């Protein structure tokens, strides 16, 4: 197996240590720390804001860090959530349903396509692989209009399908799985073949378990995009709307009232935390997948 399947940082050799000056290390470390703070600051600010009592939120001069942290904003948020147009559980169900079907469907369909492309050459295989790399070079912004028309012609407006089905066609996840599968030794597949396993059988019982990091990454990508989806111009029925849509309604656009500022801060902290936690839990898989993400020449 390639090195990617055994992934640990190693200690630097003696000879190589001479290429690092102490002063350089200090300057680089300082640079990274400052940059890290700048990048982390808005996130830090968001969590601090969510914990601020209202008087601290509108204090002058304002302070970034909270002094008397309180969970009142979250309690207020739950009070708002208890009085939504449709029970909050329904929004939650809609989001989860779309994410589960969208990601599981995508992983099964895309991995089935990735396996032959990664491990075999047959008429058309090179062309399709190339087409998939080309499709990474433009994104959904280009295809919005025709896809909107296709989805409405298929009668999918105001149904989960309008959100789920386009995510099946996402090529980034397929691309990661395809590249990762190339690292599987041919001998392993040959052996299974000799034992009489069909390609489908090999795919589900050998290939998929081996490329777990790749489909976990595909899952995270789909999760991030579907969790943030408000169903804009596809979903009009309130009882089919997502959590992201409901939370954006709390925000009420650009005119944020004083009374809602706390609720809003709590809502955005929660909306951000959920994909962040999922990424945190699965980040080793993502890094392992990314090791094979390169475009070959």
């Amino acid at each position, binding site marked *: 197996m390639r090195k990617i399947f055994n992934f640990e*940082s190693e200690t630097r*050799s003696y*000879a*190589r240590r001479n*290429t690092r000056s102490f002063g*350089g*290390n200090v300057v*680089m470390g300082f640079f*990274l720390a400052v940059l*890290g703070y700048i990048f*982390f600051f*808005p*996130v830090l*600010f*968001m969590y601090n*804001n969510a914990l601020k009592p209202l008087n601290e939120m*509108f204090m002058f001069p*304002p302070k*970034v860090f909270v002094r008397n942290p309180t969970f009142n904003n979250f309690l207020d948020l739950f009070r708002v959530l208890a009085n939504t147009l449709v029970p909050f559980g329904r929004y939650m169900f809609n989001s989860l349903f779309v994410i589960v079907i969208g990601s599981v469907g995508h992983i099964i369909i895309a991995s089935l*396509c990735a396996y*032959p492309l990664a491990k075999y050459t*047959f*008429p058309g295989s090179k062309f*399709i692989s190339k087409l998939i790399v080309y499709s*990474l*070079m*433009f*994104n959904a912004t*280009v*295809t*919005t209009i*025709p896809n*909107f028309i*296709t989805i409405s012609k298929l009668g999918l407006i105001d149904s989960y399908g309008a959100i789920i*089905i*386009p995510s*099946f*066609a996402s090529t980034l996840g*397929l691309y990661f799985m395809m590249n990762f599968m190339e690292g599987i030794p041919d001998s392993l597949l040959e052996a299974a073949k000799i034992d009489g396993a*069909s390609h489908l059988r090999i*795919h589900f019982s050998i290939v998929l378990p081996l490329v777990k990091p790749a489909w976990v990454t595909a899952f995270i990508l789909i999760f991030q995009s579907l969790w943030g989806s408000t169903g804009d111009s596809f979903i009009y029925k309130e009882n089919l709307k997502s959590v992201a849509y409901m939370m954006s309604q709390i*925000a009420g656009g*650009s005119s*944020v009232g004083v009374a809602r500022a706390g609720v809003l801060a709590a809502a*955005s902290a929660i*909306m*951000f935390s959920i994909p962040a936690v999922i990424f*945190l839990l699965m*980040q080793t898989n*993502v*890094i*392992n*997948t*990314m*090791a094979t*993400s*390169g*475009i*070959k*020449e």
Partner: protein
Amino acid sequence: MKKTKWQNLIHQIKKSYMFYLMMAPFLLFFVVFAVYPVLKAIFYSFTDYNILEKPNFIGLKNYAQLILHDAIFIKAIQNTFIIAVFVGPFGYILSFLVAWLINELPHWLGTIMTIVFYMPSMAGGAMLIFSLLFSNDSNGYINAYLLDWGLIDAPILWLTSAKTVLVLVIVISVWMSLGVGFLSFVAGIKNVQEDQYEAAAIDGIRNRWQELWFITLPNMKPQLLFGAVMSITGSFSVGAVADSLVGFPSPSYASHTIVNHLNDYGLIRLEMGRASAIAVILFFIMIVSNLLVQKLLRKVGT
């Protein structure tokens, strides 16, 4: 001779029928939602389609209208290129630099820093933070600090002044630009074999910059290519940032991009012909700049 070639091909196709079956479901969705839409957009761009009536062929009129008579579209092209020129290269180099520095850290600290830098790209909905930071009145944090320190004597209208809106969009887009490409760099640098560095150190590599140029970069070409694709595609499709920061349209179209223009015609005015022409122009801008940059990057270290 020709006949046997064909027979051979047919034989191969028959032999691989299982592969075609396995790929069929994905390819169906891929064709319907990724290939067909591009062709359809090209077709619609030559018509006056508006969803309600049948499309009539009108030749290049949509393109002519956009380029000759639509001052806002020209503005959108300018803004898109300004944003892409800043966000693309800057975000790309920053991604690489950060990934490279992270690789020097102990494993656990490197993991934490990777997450810290990646987090903003997940924060699609966290624009609220920036509207608070850059709020126009003296309650906006940036204004309040600047007032407090005596650097300004009246609040700056960050979100309504045409001068500052575009800058804010660029800053936030850079903040969000350390995404999948960045992760690819982090993993790619980690995967360069240690013995290559060792050999290079013995062969007379003096410092980290030489090591970067002669060993790390040439070894990372596939990741560099992939990162470039992600970064170019992403920086040309900036549009949602301005929407959620200052609403649509932005003050005197200061941060109006091609994507905003596309959504305006496609999803609000439902002038699908015109919108498709915009989409086709955006499509070619993305593909051409991707292919150009790929060509450039392939020269790294050769």
